[in-house]
Structures are given as structure tokens and as C-alpha cells.
């Protein structure tokens, strides 16, 4: 399927950043890192940055990387905002790949080059950068680099996959939309890979979750389980939502939205490993 396509016409690489009140120094360092990483890529692919603000207007310094800002539409959630960026980027026929980039991360100078090389070898695959120095403990195959799901922190989405599978499910406000996209990609026959040489400096596990993070994660987990038929997991998460005092009782839990059209193969979903959604290495 997607992986049998050739790299010919791979085209421009569009980077998408959704901001939410990020400080200027953080964005400046990200942009500086993108500039260095784009330099490594050289003439192999043009690199352009698409930005949308879910919060206050973000401040970016001048740089050698072309930057396009989309009109903000309010705090519509990560996936929804990222979809707007993706749609704008892929509307330009010269865009071959889109890269979701978290605003609180920093790219290693070889990050883009490594991602592009991995994508040239597997043109249809969804490919994640390796978060660094911490990385998610989920497993991946050392030889094939296949992994059960890919993180949206720094995630390459090729045009073929986007056209076949679409962007993120907007029913996720925040968190776990990347797991859903990975499972949809696998359901449609696309590979999901790690590019181990593509380092993306980003905190993964070092910070204790805030109540807001906990709430969004649990709410997303509930919807993910509903969508992918993980009944026991859904019951467990609903119990946690009540236990944590986020809802008074099951009767007060919000109605679950109908998942959009698409191919959902429940056999690719993994609810046996809690919120890791995959076997872990340690």
C-alpha cells in the first residue's frame, strides 16, 4: 500500500506548530533549531513553517525559514488546529510531507535529515522522531523500526497517508489523537515507524502531570476506548474520572461523540498496557 510508493516527487516539507501561550524564548530556540536542521537538509527539500495560535498571539524572531501564519480560530484543541495547518500545507501541490512539531521541543541538527531519509526508504509511512533525552518506553522493532504507535510531538505525515487516512480525529481535544492516527494508519495498511537518529529534545515523562493534563488524558482515553472498542479500558478510565473527582458519577460523564467515517481495525488497538498502549522496554 502506501509503502510501495516511490519517493519521487516527495517535494516540500511543511512543518506545523500549534502554539498555546508559549514564551518567546522557547519559540525562538525551536525556530533556531529548525533553521539548523533545515540547513542539514539543504537542497533536498524546501522547508517551510506553518503556525497557528490556539492562545495568545505567538512571537517569532526573524529567521531564514519561511513562516506562514494561519488565522487563529480560538482554542479548538491540538488535533483540530493541526488539521487546519495540514490542510493549508497540502493544498499546495508542492508539499510532499507534513511534520507536526510541538512548540516546547527543540530539534537536533540532524532531525529533519534523518526523518527525510527514513521517509525516502518508506515513503508512505507515518514516522516519529525519537524524543530525547527521555524517550517513550514503548517498544519498537530494532530491525524494521516498526512501532505500535507514533508520538505527535514530532511526527512526519506523508501526503499519501494524509489523503488515505486524513488528519487527526477532532473529537480528541488534546492527547492520544496521535495514537488514534497511528492505529488508523495501521488499519489502512500503512507502516508506523521510529526514526532513531532523528532526535527531538522534548520532555516526555519527567514532569508530573497537572490536573488539566490528567483530565484531558483521561477524557481522551475514554473516547479512544469507545472508538476502538476497548470496553474494559473504558470502564477503568471512567472509574478514574470519578475517583479523581472530575465527574460526580457515571451518569454525569459527557455523551461520547460518534467517531467519524474511516477504517477501524480493532485488532491493531492495544488496551492491555494501560496508557502506554504498547508493550514497554523498561
Amino acid at each position, binding site marked *: 500500500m502506501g509503502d510501495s510508493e516511490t519517493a519521487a516527487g516527495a517535494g516540500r516539507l511543511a512543518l506545523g506548530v500549534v502554539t498555546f501561550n508559549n514564551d518567546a*524564548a522557547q519559540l*525562538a*530556540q525551536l525556530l*533556531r*533549531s529548525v533553521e*539548523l536542521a533545515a540547513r542539514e537538509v539543504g537542497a533536498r527539500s524546501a522547508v517551510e513553517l506553518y503556525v497557528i495560535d490556539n492562545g495568545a498571539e505567538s512571537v517569532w524572531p526573524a529567521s531564514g525559514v519561511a513562516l506562514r501564519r494561519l488565522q487563529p480560530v480560538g482554542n479548538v484543541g491540538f488535533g483540530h488546529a493541526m488539521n487546519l495547518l495540514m490542510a493549508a500545507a497540502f493544498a499546495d501541490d508542492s508539499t510532499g510531507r507534513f511534520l507536526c512539531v510541538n512548540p516546547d521541543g*527543540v*530539534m*537536533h*541538527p*540532524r532531525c529533519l535529515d*534523518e526523518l527525510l531519509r527514513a521517509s525516502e526508504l518508506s515513503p508512505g509511512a507515518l514516522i516519529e522522531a525519537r524524543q*530525547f*533525552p*527521555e*524517550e517513550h*518506553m514503548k517498544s519498537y522493532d*530494532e530491525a524494521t523500526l516498526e512501532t505500535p504507535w507514533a508520538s505527535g510531538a514530532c511526527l512526519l505525515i506523508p501526503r499519501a497517508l494524509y489523503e488515505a487516512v486524513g488528519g487527526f480525529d477532532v473529537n480528541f481535544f488534546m492527547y492520544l489523537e496521535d495514537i488514534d492516527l497511528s492505529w488508523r494508519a495501521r488499519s489502512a495498511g500503512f507502516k508506523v515507524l521510529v526514526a*532513531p*537518529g532523528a*532526535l527531538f*529534545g*522534548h*520532555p516526555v515523562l*519527567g*514532569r508530573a502531570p497537572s490536573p488539566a493534563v490528567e483530565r484531558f488524558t483521561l477524557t481522551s482515553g475514554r473516547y479512544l476506548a469507545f472508538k476502538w472498542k476497548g470496553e474494559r479500558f473504558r470502564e477503568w478510565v471512567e472509574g478514574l474520572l470519578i475517583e479523581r473527582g472530575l465527574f460526580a458519577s457515571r451518569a454525569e460523564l459527557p455523551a461520547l461523540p460518534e467517531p467519524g467515517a474511516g477504517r477501524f481495525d480493532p485488532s491493531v488497538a492495544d488496551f492491555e498496557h494501560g496508557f502506554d498502549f504498547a508493550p514497554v*522496554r*523498561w
Partner: protein
Amino acid sequence: MTRRDTALRDNKTLSVVVRVGASAPALDETFFSLAIQDWRDVELVVVLEAGGEEFARGVARAVEAQPWPDAPRYRLLRPEEAEGGGRRGALLGRAVAEAAGRFLTVLDAGRVVVYQHGYAALVGQLLESGRAVAVGGCRSAHVRGGPGRGFVVTKDDFTLWGSPLELLGKRLAPVCAHVIDRTRLGGFELSFGESARAERDFLARLYAASEPDFSTRGVFVCERRLRAGVAGGILYAAARGGYRLKARLRRVGAGLRGA
């Protein structure tokens, strides 16, 4: 109070003394982890434990290639610049003398990476508590494959008791998991010996002079990377043997529970 003391008291710079041995398998990883620290006021004093112009240029390139928030502040200290013929302890002593920061830490390039929040957590704790030394948790990662793309097979957590008796037996948080506030050390001499136990001896003297602030002991601040096939490989092999045994015992345990 000397001019230097005043300058130290008034700054919040963290000086990271980075030792670079002739064989530093993942130099780039260490410098990248330093470039992306949440604590941005950082200077590097890079201690080269091997000589040669080409070696020094390679290390400088590895520093400058990183996406630092501002221009990197660093200086290279060559073996020939220290008294004592470039011995390790003498070099470290010279590096500490050169360091301009109020806060100080030491790490081995190529073998250690620091988590983004690591230094911010330790320096923040020192500023809050007014103590001289803060210590955090450290992980050991067992890595297979080349630098930059190695496969992390597993990680071990090293958790401290939170007592000055940490140094008993083999309970030793590595020096990279410590940050020192030099303005609060009193007469303590920041010097390092030349023996194989120099790091341990340094920490023993430090703990005796000033009980560390252990309140950050549950925060993992750094990670030692043990690679198969390079120095540290014996440790790696021993640890891997331990894991296989642990995994086997777990399987046996699971079998017994299932029976």
C-alpha cells in the same frame, strides 16, 4: 569578601565542567542535552583529557553545532594547560578555578545526558533551600548500537535513601546528579584527586562538609548511558546478565501465579 565572591553571589550561572575523554562515544548527545536545558544560564568548561589540535577542533564543533538558546558560552581546557602534566584531577581543579558560575556540576561527555528539567530542578532547589549541595536521581540506560541512533534496551532507576549515609557500600549517586552552590561551601576545597576513586572521595568530603539537600532525590536529572562494545561494556554486560535473570524470575513467578 573578594571581588570574585561578590561576582559569584550575584550570578545565577551554572558552570558545567564537562570531561571529554579520548573515547567519548556519544559526545553529540551530551552537548545536545546541555543545549536544551530549561535552566538557560549555562556555561561550559570543557576539559579535554586528550591532546591534539584535531581533537580539540572536533569537540569545539560538537559544542557549536547544537541549537543553543543563545551563542554557546564555553571554553576548552587542554591537558597542557594544567599543572601536573594534564592529570585528570589537576585538570578538573583548573576547570573549577576557571568556572565563572555560582553553581557548579561535573559530567562525563559521551556517557551522560541530562534531562531538560534536571539542572533547573537542582538549581531551583538550592535557591529555595539555601543549602550548598542538591542531589537528584540518576538512571542508567543500556544502549545497543551506535551513538545518536542506539536502541535503549532498558533503563534502571537509582533511587537514593535521602541520607548522608548514601556513600555507604556502593550507594553512590554519580557526581553528575549533583549541583553545588559555591557561595555556600565555606572553606571546602573544590579539588579532585587522581585515584580511580577520586569521584567517590570528592563526594565523601563534600557530604561531610555540607549535608546535601535530598528533597530532589525523586527527580531524575540525568542518565548514564552504558553501551555494549565500548568502555563501560563490562558494566553493560553485567547489567544485561542481571536483566535476563530478572526477566527469567519474573516469568517463573508469573507461571507460579498462573498455576
